[in-house]
């Protein structure tokens, strides 16, 4: 099995090696290792970027390979974050409440503790009652299950309705945008049970580990993110390498033809959509503890559009393209929007990148789509010398004289 994957995707080993070296390098230069060349906040940024790369790989599977332009996968990412955030917030507040009530003359009952936690968490939205969706918040194991289950179920139900009615193309994209928008608007409400626009915060503090410095916690999450990306990458490579990969690429290129071969196209789409939503949930569950806070703005429709832009710029239909895109665009983006990019003084007008970055990103997206549809990943083809024949859709000449792959590769 694994041999087949590696034979068909020699890039997997290269990718794992690069990821391993990157992880090792950052670790050795971190505050945790004592060298402090890479600050703890940069470790967090890089760890978060690994999570973004993971959700980009999922996006590539659903869009680049299966041809479903989902503009809603960041909603699944956010839901994963909310699910882990609930446990983190509950458990940490629990610790605080228990230690503050310990000074009281009469030991508090269990009900009093829970009421006090509710007061702490929901005070900002003028409530103190635990909504039913917090039923499992005291159990790490159950919330971890929900990290994959909640995005998975939402994706399954949504996908079942959409694919069964044969909604495709732009209409499907719009529908996924509507889904994220509806979810974000719902979460913005104070009575949604997830603290409205305040979201969940303090997620960078692990319950019971108050004595552990952030420099250690950040490197743990960095490792976990790298591990999750490695696993997700290998899993995706395995999925796309065999006949399943053939079928989904077939669906992308001509779904009617796949149907006439007898494959239940809608079931395949639903499968890929749901599995990638679960992967997105896991990526989100690793991301938000590093970010420290999650609120409904994270799920805004634009976030899912960014995800598509990363994959397009990195090169869709190749897994490493998605990773390159996520790293390149999100790091360049934080450089521009973080105020580090020098302003450009044009005399009459000064270009402030904080304002103009989005315009630049939009233009790059259009440029990549029109001029280099293979994205940054296409550069790898130049390097490995794999040049596809440029046929402009025409057949490659008559029988025998046709250009063969070997010739095309020169």
């Amino acid at each position, binding site marked *: *099995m694994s041999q*087949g994957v590696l034979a068909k995707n020699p890039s997997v080993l290269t990718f794992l090696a690069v990821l391993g070296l990157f992880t090792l390098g950052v670790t050795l230069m971190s505050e945790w290792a004592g060298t402090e060349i890479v600050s703890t906040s940069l470790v967090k940024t890089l760890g978060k970027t690994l999570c973004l790369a993971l959700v980009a790989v999922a996006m590539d599977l659903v869009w680049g390979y299966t041809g479903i332009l989902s503009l809603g996968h960041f909603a699944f990412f956010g839901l994963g974050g909310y699910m882990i955030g609930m446990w983190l917030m509950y458990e940490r507040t629990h610790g605080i409440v228990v230690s503050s009530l310990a000074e009281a003359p009469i030991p508090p009952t269990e009900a009093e503790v829970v009421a006090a936690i509710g007061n702490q968490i929901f005070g900002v939205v003028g409530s103190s009652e635990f909504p039913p969706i917090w039923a499992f918040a005291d159990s790490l194991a159950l919330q971890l299950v929900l990290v994959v289950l909640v995005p998975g179920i939402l994706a399954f139900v949504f996908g079942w309705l959409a694919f069964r009615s044969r909604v495709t193309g732009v209409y499907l994209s719009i529908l996924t945008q509507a889904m994220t928008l509806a979810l974000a608007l719902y979460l913005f409400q104070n009575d949604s049970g997830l603290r409205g626009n305040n979201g969940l915060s303090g997620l960078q503090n692990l319950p019971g580990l108050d004595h552990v410095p952030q420099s250690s916690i950040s490197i743990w999450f960095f490792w976990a993110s790298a591990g999750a990306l490695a696993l997700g990458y290998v899993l995706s490579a395995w*999925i796309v390498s*065999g*006949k*399943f990969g*053939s*079928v989904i*690429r*077939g669906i992308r*290129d*001509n779904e*009617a*033809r796949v*149907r*006439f*071969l*007898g*494959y*239940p*196209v809608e*079931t*395949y789409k639903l*499968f890929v959509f749901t599995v990638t939503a679960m992967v997105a949930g896991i990526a989100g569950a690793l991301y938000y503890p590093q970010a420290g806070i999650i609120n409904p703005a994270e799920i805004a429709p634009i976030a899912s559009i960014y995800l598509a832009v990363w994959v397009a710029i990195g090169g869709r239909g190749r897994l490493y393209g998605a990773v390159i895109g996520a790293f390149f665009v999100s790091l360049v983006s934080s450089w521009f929007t973080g105020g580090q990019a020098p302003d450009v003084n044009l005399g009459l007008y000064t270009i402030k990148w904080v304002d103009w970055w989005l315009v630049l990103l939009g233009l790059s997206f259009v440029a990549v789509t029109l001029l280099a549809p293979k994205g940054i990943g296409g550069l790898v083809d130049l390097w490995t010398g794999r040049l596809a*024949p440029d*046929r402009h859709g025409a*057949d*490659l*000449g*008559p*029988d025998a004289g*046709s*250009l*063969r*792959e070997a010739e*095309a590769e020169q």
Partner: protein
Amino acid sequence: MSTLLEVSGVSVTFDGFKAINNLSFAIADAEMRAIIGPNGAGKTTFMDIVTGKTRPDEGRILWGDANISLLGLSEARIAREGIGRKFQKPTVFEDQTVRENLLMALRNARGPLQVLFYRPRREDLDRVHELSGEIGLLDALDRKSGELSHGQKQWLEIGMLLAQEPRLLLVDEPAAGMTPAEREHTTALLVEAAKSRAVVVIEHDMEFVRRLGCKVTVLHEGAVLAEGSLDHVTANQEVIDVYLGR
């Protein structure tokens, strides 16, 4: 011989235009049939109806020994019932190799999980090898099918059709755009296939139809105009008026 497919009284209307008008058609096991008729006669639409792509407004379509109704079944389900289709324009998966195209078509389990854990077995690879020999693409197994010539793509599609091992093959204009030598090869493939299964061929080229040497159905304005041997239908005055005479 028992009837494999029986279409009776089928009609389809597109925006008020009756593309298929009370059409009836039957084919037996291991029978070869040619369908001819002027452009727009409804030949392709007929195949769309049988394969579940287009739903008829009325009529019955019965299939197989158990006479199950194909109406209301999905395209994929109908394909799994044993009806394979070749399109007018060659449609193969251009981004994938000839081998991948054939492996995908091979008659194996079609569910996502079975496909996910599928690894080609010895006999699958042998079958792909054998088929690619029959369609003259043995040397091209590892080429992207997008690089093939037009005729080779047509053959690959026929090969995929054979790989599905359907009981009924619907073939829409297989010889279009082929050289005379390629046509001959195609005829041989179809005649061979018809020894063990039913084959319906839509074709314009009379010479090609003659070489198939089978019963012919003439469609006109969505209905059967004549049926019988090629000599019989070409002698029919109505057929000469609407089709041959032009």
